[in-house]
């Protein structure tokens, strides 16, 4: 029973970690460069969750000031993650531009085929 309680109290963190290692797995295991970038953005999104989860207070309200409400969730992680989302899409678009460039140069976006064409790249 105690174990189950601990599990329920940390369920958010466990799912966050699952998303994180799924992103890591996709980045390492999949050869398609676009899929790798999708994995990278999964990893980034799990970090948003890692920051926002401790900021939440059950029974609290969103941090918008209004008479009659005393308990607000922590606004600071929200601010940090607003910045992180925009930086995330910037890195994603830069990575995709590199993929387009690689496709023009090598004619493929599969890592194995690129290595086969250019042994020095490995």
């Amino acid at each position: 029973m105690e174990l189950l309680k601990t599990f329920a109290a940390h369920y958010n963190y466990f799912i966050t970690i699952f998303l994180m290692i799924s992103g890591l797995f996709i980045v390492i295991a999949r050869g398609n460069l676009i899929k790798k970038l999708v994995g990278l953005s999964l990893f980034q999104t799990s970090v948003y969750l890692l920051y926002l989860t401790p900021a939440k207070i059950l029974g609290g309200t969103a941090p918008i000031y209004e008479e009659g409400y005393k308990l607000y969730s922590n606004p600071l992680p929200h601010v940090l993650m607003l910045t992180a989302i925009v930086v995330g899409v910037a890195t994603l678009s830069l990575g995709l531009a590199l993929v387009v460039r690689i496709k023009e140069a090598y004619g493929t976006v599969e890592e194995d085929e690129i290595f086969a064409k250019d042994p020095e790249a490995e």
Partner: protein
Amino acid sequence: MIGNPSAEAFVMAVLLTLLAAVTLAIARQRNMFGVVILSSIYSFLMASLMIVLDAVDVAMTEASVGAGISTVILLATLYLTGSMEYPQRRSVAIPLFVSIVVGAALVWGTIGLPAFGISDAPIHQHVAPTYIDFSRKHDMPPNIVTAVLADFRGFDTLGEVTVVFTAGIGVLLLLQGGWRLGGSRPDDDTEGDDEI
């Protein structure tokens, strides 16, 4: 979100489970179009979860940027590269092992964290009350996130704009370089400078 705390926790658990399921589907999907659409679904689920987590501003940004712009640029890249399906040729044993070891270490580190959603966790004790009281006392915007973003931490946004600007220059240089006009790849960095 004001309401029954156990109902909040239940909605969150459902959304988190759906997120995990979509992530599994992304990892298994071979069709790249399917992967892009699934990642869009993932972003919308994430935005819903952020609303339940009281991060309304972040949810709005995630829905427009994560599910909107990211999907559009991924689809545009698919159009340019034309890679729709890919075969599975490599072994997944080593990546799976690395991921599981990293995950186990993270779970081990997570056990000691305070339970989810309690109001006397250390994160709610020091800086957060100061921001909330200070922004109210000095007539800053009623949305405390806006107050912190614009009035307390404006330099963060300056850094963010710098990153976006740099990434934009990088994308422009990569996609509109001189090699297209010449029809061949440049062999060094200087070639093509006069065409830009």
